[in-house]
C-alpha cells in the first residue's frame, strides 16, 4: 500500500428527497432494494408486487398472483428470481424476466410475515405468524419445506440470513440465532414486548439489531448476547415497522409512527437525523447496499432519499 488511504469522510446521511414514487398498489407494506441497489421492490396491499428502477423511478414489472396483500419480498443474488410472501399464507417464487410464478409454496398456517433467500438462492426462508420458519428448497421440486423451525412461541416477525446463520425475531420477545455450522440455537430474550425486527450488521455480522414495541432499538453482541447500544426516541407502539443499518454500518435507522425516520449514530447512540417523511406511519425502509440512499414507504408512496440534492435538481431542470 504505497498510497495513503483517503481520509475518511464524515458519513453522509440521506436527508434529501430525490424522488417520490406513487406505487398505485394500495399501502406499500414493504420496500426493498435488490442485491446491488439498482432496483427496488414494493409490496402492495393490493396483492401485487412491483419492480421499479431505483434511479429513474420507472415501473418495470408487476407481479400478480398473490391472494392477499404482499408483506415482504427479496431478490436473489443474481437478480433472476424474486421471492415474496403474503397474507394468503403462501410464498411465491417469481421469475423476474417473465413475471411468472415459478413456484407457489404452501404450508404456513397463517400469514407469512417475512421471507428471504439465502446467499445462493438455494433456500427460501419464510417466517410466519404461525410461529414457524420454513426452509423451502428452490432446487428440488419438493413442495414440503426442508425443515420447519418451530421453536418460536409466537409469530415470527422478521428473519435474516447471514451466511451460515439465521436470525429470527419473534413476537415472543426473543431473537433466535440458528447457527448451522455449529449446530446451535442461541435464544436471546430481548423484551417482554414484541420483538420486531432484527438485522445483523452487514459488514462483519457481529451484532444484531432488534427493535421492539417498547420504542427501543437494541444492538446486541452476537456471540455473547450482551447489549452494545440502545436507541430510543422514535415511536413504535403498535405497528410492525422496519429498522436497518446504513451501508457503512455507521448509523442505525428506524421507522417511526410519527412520520419520521430516525437515524442514530451507531456508536454514540445519539440521534443524528430525524427525517420528516410524512404525516402517516413510515412502515418500511431499506438502505442501499453500498451508497447513501434510503427507501421509505409510507402509505402508498415510496420515497427515495439521497445524500446530495444535485442530480435530482438537474433532473428537475431537465424536465
Amino acid at each position, binding site marked *: 500500500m504505497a498510497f495513503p488511504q483517503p481520509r475518511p469522510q464524515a458519513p453522509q446521511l440521506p436527508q434529501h428527497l430525490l424522488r417520490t414514487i406513487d406505487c398505485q398498489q394500495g399501502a406499500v407494506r414493504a420496500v426493498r432494494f435488490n442485491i446491488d441497489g439498482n432496483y427496488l421492490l414494493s409490496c402492495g396491499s393490493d396483492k401485487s408486487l412491483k419492480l421499479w428502477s431505483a434511479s*429513474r423511478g420507472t415501473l418495470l414489472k408487476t407481479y400478480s398472483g398473490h391472494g392477499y396483500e404482499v408483506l415482504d419480498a427479496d431478490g436473489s443474488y443474481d437478480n433472476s428470481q424474486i421471492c415474496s410472501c403474503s397474507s394468503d399464507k403462501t410464498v411465491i417464487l417469481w421469475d423476474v424476466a417473465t413475471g411468472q410464478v415459478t413456484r407457489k409454496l404452501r404450508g*404456513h*398456517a397463517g400469514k407469512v410475515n417475512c421471507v428471504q433467500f439465502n446467499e445462493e438462492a438455494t433456500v427460501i426462508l419464510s417466517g410466519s405468524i404461525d410461529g414457524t420458519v420454513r426452509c423451502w428448497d428452490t432446487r428440488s421440486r419438493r413442495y414440503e419445506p426442508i425443515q420447519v423451525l418451530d421453536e418460536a412461541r409466537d409469530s415470527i416477525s422478521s428473519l435474516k440470513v447471514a451466511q451460515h446463520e439465521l436470525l429470527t425475531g419473534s413476537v415472543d420477545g426473543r431473537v433466535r440465532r440458528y447457527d448451522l455450522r455449529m449446530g*446451535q440455537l442461541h435464544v436471546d*430474550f430481548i423484551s417482554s414486548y*414484541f420483538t420486531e425486527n432484527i438485522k445483523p450488521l452487514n459488514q462483519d455480522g457481529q451484532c444484531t439489531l432488534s427493535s421492539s414495541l417498547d420504542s427501543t432499538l437494541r444492538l446486541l453482541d452476537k456471540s455473547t448476547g450482551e447489549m452494545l447500544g440502545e436507541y430510543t426516541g422514535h415511536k413504535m407502539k403498535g405497528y410492525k415497522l422496519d429498522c436497518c443499518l446504513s451501508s457503512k454500518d455507521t448509523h442505525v435507522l428506524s421507522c417511526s409512527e410519527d412520520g419520521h425516520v430516525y437515524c442514530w449514530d451507531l456508536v454514540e447512540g445519539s440521534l443524528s437525523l430525524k427525517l420528516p417523511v410524512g404525516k402517516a406511519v413510515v412502515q418500511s425502509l431499506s438502505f442501499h447496499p453500498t451508497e447513501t440512499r434510503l427507501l421509505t414507504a409510507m402509505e402508498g408512496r415510496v420515497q427515495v432519499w439521497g445524500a446530495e440534492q444535485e442530480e435530482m435538481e438537474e433532473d428537475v431542470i431537465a424536465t
Partner: protein
Amino acid sequence: MASDSDSDEDFVTYGTPLEPLEEDEPLKKPIPLHDQTVKDEKGRYQRFHGAFTGGFSAGYFNTVGSKEGWTPSAFVSSRQQKAEKHHARPEDFMDEEDFSEHGIAPREITTSQEFSSSRRDKAGEKARAISAQAALIPGDTLLEELIAPARSSIGVELLMKMGWKEGQGVGPRVKRKARRQQKDGGGKVYGCTLPPAGSEESEDDDEEFAPENVTFAPKDVTPVDFNPRLGVQGLGYRGLDPSLALLGHGTAEHIDLFKPQSETRNRLFGDTKSSSRRGGVVGQAFGVGALEDDDEDVYHRDSMSRYDTILGEEEPGDGLYGWTAPQQYTKKKDRSKDASYLGKILEGFTLAQKPLEEKTIFPPPSLPRDYRPVHHFRPSVDVSHLSGVSPALAEALRVSKGHMVKEEPQQAGRHQLDSGQRRALLGEDTLQGPSSVMELLRPEDRQRLLSLRNSSNPPSAKTSIPVSSHASQTSGKSAQVLPASSDLQQVSLAAWRGIQTSSQTFKPFEKNPSKQARYELYLSCLKQGDNDALEQSLDPGMTEWERSREREEFVRASILYRPTSSSLSSRFTRAKDQEDDDSVEVSPDQEGDLDDKQAAVKMKMFGKLTRETFEWYPDKLLCKRFNVPDPYPGSGIVGLPKVKRDKFSVFNFLTVTQSREAAAPPKPPESGKKSRWDVSEQKVEKKKEDLLGELLSAARNQTETKVEQTPTPALPALPASISSSDQAPGSKPEIKSSDQQSSEEKKDGDEEEEEEEESRPPMDLFKAIFASSSDEKSSSSSEGESSDEEEEKETKEDEGKMDSEPLNLFSIPSTSTTTTSSSATTTSFSSSANTSSSHQAAAVSTQASKQEEEEFGPKLPPPSAALSRGGATSICPPSKEVKTGKKSKEKKHKKKKHYKHKKEKKKKKHKKHKHKETAEEEQGGGDGEQEDGQVSTDELLKRLKSIRSHQMW
C-alpha cells in the same frame, strides 16, 4: 514302533490300499483305462489334464474357482466407501489342492524359529508323557509332539553335556607342529590379496614358545552366520565398499567384489598396513584417469591359480586356538583376533581399544556375631500418636472419623470394640451369667441400693463394686474430672432443646447400631430438655471406662451435628423425587424462567442472563444448501432434541399443542392472544377429563384466570397510551380487556354486542362441542369474505339468544371460587345452547378469524385513503379521516370500535371495501398506464437532453 497293535492303524497311508488277496478268489478283470476315475477328497471327479495343462486340479470341474466359474469380487464403491485396493496374492489363484501336502504351496505345520531351542524341556516332556498315559485317548499328545520345537541333534546334545560350547573346536588335541606344516602348504585365498603376514610372524614366536610335549585343543570354529541372499548377485558378492573405493589402495589390491569374508574382516579389524595413496575408484574394470601417472594394470587378469580347486581344510591365517589355549599365547595375540570369535561385527562398529574397567566387587559386610536371620515386624503405630497434633485435635479426629472418613471396620482395633461387638465378631454366645453385678445381689440389697441412689447421696453408697456405680455418681465424677465436658453438655443441651422436628439428623455412629440407638436416645432426651440426658441414654451394662468415653463422644457429636434448623436447614430443600413416568417430552427452550429474564432486561443486563443456547440439529439438506458441513453427521434428529418434563404441568401442553397445531398446515392458526391460552387449556381439559378429577380442574380454573390476566399488561398498548391514540396518526393495537372497554365508550347500542364478542369463548371450544359445519375459515380469500357476509346475516338473527349464554360461560372460569369443573360447564352449556348450535359456531368462527387477522402480533399500518384518490401531494392524515366518520376499511379506529359496529355496517363495509378495491384496481391500472406513458415521454426528453448536451460538449 510297530509293537503296538493299535499303532498300526495310526499309520498314514497314501493311495488306495490293495484288497487283501484271497487265495480262492478268481482273478478280477482289470478295470479298463476309460473306466478308471480319479476323485478328489470331496468326491468330485477329476479329469487328468496332463502335466502342462494343469494336472488334476484345473479348477472346479475344469473351470476356475467355483461352480459359477471365476467370480470377481463384488465391486463396491461409493463416496463414503471407496473401493479398497486389493492386493492379489498368489494364493488367491490357487486351488485347495495346491495348499495340500503335495501341492505347490503346501501349508503344513512347520516349526518356526521361535520354537526351536537347543535344549528340551525334560520335565515337561515327562509330565506330558504321563498325562498321555492317563488320558482317555492314548494318542492325545501326538499333535503336541508334532509341534514340538526342533531339537538339536543327539551328538550336539552329548557334547553339550560334556561341557562343550557352541563354537568350540572339536577333535582330539593336537600338537602345534603338525598344524603349522599344514598351514604353510595351503596359501590359497580368494582374490588377489594375501592375508597380512603379521600373524605368521606371531606364530613363529609361538613356535619358539611352545613346548614340545604340550598339545592344544583343536581350533575353535567360528559359527557360520548364514545370511539369506536377497539380491540377484552371485555368490560371495559384497558390493562396493565406499571407504575402500574412495580412499584407494595399493595397486596390488584391486577392488575385489568377490572378496571372501575372512579377508574383509581382517581389514576391518584394523591391520591398516596399506597406505592409502589416492582416492578414487581404482581397480579392475574401472580404468585409469587421464591425470594419473602410473599406468595400472587395469585389465587385470585373474588366474585360476588363485582359487581353490580342491575341497579341503582351509588353513586360517591366524592360529586361533580354543579357549583352552595357554594364557601367554592368547595374551600375545592381537586383541582384534578375539573378535573373530564374536562372529561378524556389525558394520559401523569397531572393537574397543581399551578394555572395560572391571567392576570392583566389594565384599559383603561382615555380620555381627549374634546376628540371627529372622525378621521382626515393628508394631503398628497409631496415627494419632504419629502426627504431631495436639491431643485434643486427635481426639476430635478420632471421634469424627466414623463418618468423615470411610473407615474400614478393621481399622477400629479390638480395643475400640466393646465386649458385645467382640463377642459378635468371635461368634460366641452371650454369657449366661448375670450381666451386671446388680443381679448378683439379693433383691433386698438391690432395693436398698436403689433407695440409696434415689436419696442422692452418692458417696455413702456402700456398694464396693465400682462398676455398678450409678449414673448420678458417675456424672458427678465426670463433672469433677472434666469440667469442660459438662460445659459442653450445657452447650449441646442449649442447641438441642426445644427442637421437635423429627428431621433426619446425621448418624455419626451408624456403624454401631446399638451405640447409634443410645445416641439417638440421648438426642431425644436433649430435645426434651433433660439435664441428665447423658446418664439416661448410656448403657448401664458397660464398664465405667467405656461409659465415660461414650459420654464424651456423645456430647461432642451432639454439638458438632447440632440441628441446622436454626440457620442452615431453611436454605436447603430435600431433593425432589426421582423422575417418574409421568413426564412428557418437551423441547428444552421452554425451560427458561421468564421472570428472571424480564428482570435482567429491565436492568439492561443482557448477556448470560438472557441468553440460552441449545443444541440444534439442522436438516442435512439444509446444510448442503448452505454449503456448510453437517455439524452432527449421522444423527437422525432434526431440530431441537426433546427433554422430559412433567406431564401434569398445564403449561407444557400449552406450548406443545400450539406448536403441533402450527405444524399442521391444514389447520388455521389459533385465534387472538387471549384465546390462544384458552384454547390449549380447553384441549388439555378435554384430554384428561376424568384423569385428575374435580380438584385439579378447579385448580386449573384458577391458573386459567391468572393466565388470562397476565397477558393484558404485557400487551403493547398500554391503557395510558390509548387515550392519546386519537391524536396519533397511526392507531394502536387494542387490548381486549373488558373493564377498559366498558369504561370508555361511544356507541351505546352496540355495547352489549361488543361485550358478547369480546367475551366470547374461543372458537375451538365451540368446535370441540359442535363438531360441525364452517370449517372454512380462511380469512384471506374473497370467497371467505362473501361467506362472512352470509353468515353474519344469520348470526344477527341469533344474537338475541346468544347474548346471555356465552357471557355466563365465560364468567364461570373467571370466578375462581366456583368448584365446578370447566368440563361440567361446557356440557351444561352445550345442552342449553343446542338450539343455536351451528349458526353460533359459524359466527364465532368468522369472528375469530377476523380477530386473528388483525390482532395477531403487531399490526400493519393502514394504507391511507388518500392513495385511492391517487394524488401524491394530497396526503390526508388518517386521524382526520377517522373524524370524518367514513366507514372505510382502514384500521385506524381502535379495534374495539371496529368490532363494535353493527353487523349491518360491517356488511356494508365489506361491500364497500370490495367496491373500493375494484375501483382502486381499475383506477390504479389506468393510472399506471398513463404514468407509463408519461414516464416514457420524460425518458425521451431526458435522452434528448443528454444527446444535446453531448453535442454541446
